[in-house]
């Protein structure tokens, strides 16, 4: 469907190097990376708004690297929506239809079809200046979909929206994708990737450092950066011994269940699977370490407690537990986890 081959570009201090990416028909591909890493530039290269220094862009096996912007048939929706402020919602949606060999009736039908899909029918005759961020994003999507792009490029589409609007828009994006539109969506938010994509690529320092099926990338992050960026907190390099133990980050020895007798690899321990207590508890957990709380980070529904036990371990607990056990920064605590909850990545 869409293929990027060895795309490189240098713009001032910033560069993208040898970007290779392939979207199949119907894919929802999320490109994950920090802000300012060049994700938007990559979308603009695909759309033809920026010329790469080298490399090619293929759409349905056709090389479109030097194709005119208006003939590319890839639709980009920018983070700031880029709604034409002097046109009404309807005129915005109808923008791409001018000059097309369609009757007025057909044009009206198309406008209403996509306005209905994006739930903006009631706004059609409105001016765009007083619309909310979510409404503007929906209008931008409707406007782009009317032009029937072969591939949709989304630049941080949910970044400026509140939680409630995000939910609604995620559903809409899923619907659009399920209707057969391939989507390349760039974001810095790994939760968007989990919620929407079937494939994901992580971009860092101008290069794609890991890509593949979303499940695979999230289950087997290739580097610490990917692990951290995909929301995995306890990711360590480990040297395994034949005695089912492993030294993590060269300091802490833990018990593991190393069935495959791996010598070197990485391990992941989910913060939700680590127990935190004030005293050592007797249980089937073979890993029990005394440590000190170095940080308590509140989140929407729970707390992340960072405990230093030689390495920093992130433990996730509820507010109720935090209050019950009176955990404080600097408290001496015990962490416990079973060797079977340790995920080993060769």
């Amino acid at each position, binding site marked *: 469907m869409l293929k990027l081959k060895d795309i490189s570009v240098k713009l001032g201090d910033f560069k993208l190097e040898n970007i290779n990416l392939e979207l199949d028909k119907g894919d929802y591909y999320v490109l994950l990376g920090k802000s300012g890493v060049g994700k938007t530039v990559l979308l603009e290269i695909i*759309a033809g*708004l920026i010329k790469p220094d080298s490399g090619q862009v293929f759409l349905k096996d056709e090389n479109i690297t030097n194709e005119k912007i*208006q003939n590319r048939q*890839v639709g*980009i929706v920018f983070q700031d929506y*880029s709604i*034409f402020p*002097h046109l009404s919602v309807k005129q915005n949606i109808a923008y791409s239809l*001018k*000059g097309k060999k369609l009757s007025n009736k057909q044009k009206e039908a198309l406008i209403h079809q996509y306005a209905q899909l994006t739930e903006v029918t009631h706004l059609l005759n409105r001016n765009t200046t007083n619309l909310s961020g979510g409404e503007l994003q929906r209008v931008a999507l409707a406007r782009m979909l009317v032009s029937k792009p072969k591939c949709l490029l989304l630049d941080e589409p949910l970044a400026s929206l509140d939680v409630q609007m995000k939910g609604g828009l995620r559903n809409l994006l899923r619907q659009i994708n399920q209707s057969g539109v391939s989507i390349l969506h760039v974001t810095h938010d790994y939760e968007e990737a989990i919620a929407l994509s079937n494939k994901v690529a992580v971009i860092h320092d101008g290069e794609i450092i890991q890509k593949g099926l979303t499940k695979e990338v999230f289950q087997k992050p290739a580097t610490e950066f990917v692990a951290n960026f995909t929301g995995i907190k306890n990711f360590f390099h480990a040297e395994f011994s034949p005695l089912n133990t492993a030294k993590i980050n060269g300091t802490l020895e833990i018990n593991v269940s190393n069935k495959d007798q791996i010598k070197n690899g990485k391990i992941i321990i989910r913060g939700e699977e680590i127990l935190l207590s004030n005293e050592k508890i007797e249980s089937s957990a073979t890993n029990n370490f005394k440590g000190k709380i170095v940080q308590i980070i509140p989140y929407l529904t729970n707390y992340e407690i960072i405990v230093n036990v030689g390495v920093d371990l992130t433990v996730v607990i509820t507010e109720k537990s935090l209050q019950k056990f009176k955990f404080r920064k600097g408290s001496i605590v015990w962490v416990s986890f079973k060797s079977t909850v340790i995920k080993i990545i060769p």
Partner: protein
Amino acid sequence: MINNRSTPLLFPLLGGLILLFIIAPLANMFLATTPNQLFETSKDQDVIDSIFLTLWVSFVSTIVFSVAAIPLSYYLARTKFRFKNIINGIVDLPVVIPHSAAGIAILGLISRDSTIGQVASSFGLNFVGHPVGIALAMAFVSIPFLINAARDGFENVPLKLEKTALNLGASPIRVFFSISLPLAWKNILSGLIMMFARGLSEFGAVIIVAYHPMVTPVLIFERFGSFGLKYARPVSVVFILVCLVFFILLRTLAKEKKSENA
């Protein structure tokens, strides 16, 4: 907004002096002109003809030159090229050179000895002493006002909107007419009004290119030279009033257009 109390008292006092400097001569001229003089002057055919000539020549010159000046402004706003600063300097040149010198330059270009003058002569035209010559002189000195205002307007149009329009399948020319031009229109209109107003008031360049037919600034000069201040003053007052009416009318229309688009 800064609180009035935080501005030194000296500033509005100095500002008041400047305003007085602008208002006092005009007020004096208006007060020194009797209603009878105004009435008689406004019936004077020479005055009517010259005001009419000044208005339509400046208007036509503004419209004709805007056809090329607006695309130039867009090009300057959107394109990066090596000698852009030099081009911007050339655009501003008519503002800094003496207008009589500008008149001499225009005369050299359109006189019968020049190539353009000879080509025009072969069609039976002589731009010197002709409304076309006046229009050229007016445009020469007033076009920077339009180009600069329009360039600022185009620069204020977010590039992303144009990129989006292109991405939606519009050709660059459609993007210009459907996105860039409407969004920069406020500045362009302001530039057109300024160019028109500047053209109306031009004297130095016009008098060298065409003493006759007489535009109003030249007529005022002629009345002053031949008959003195007493006869020049009513023409000046009538012309200023006409210019003010046009200026207010155009500004009001521009504002209405703006609120329609808001």
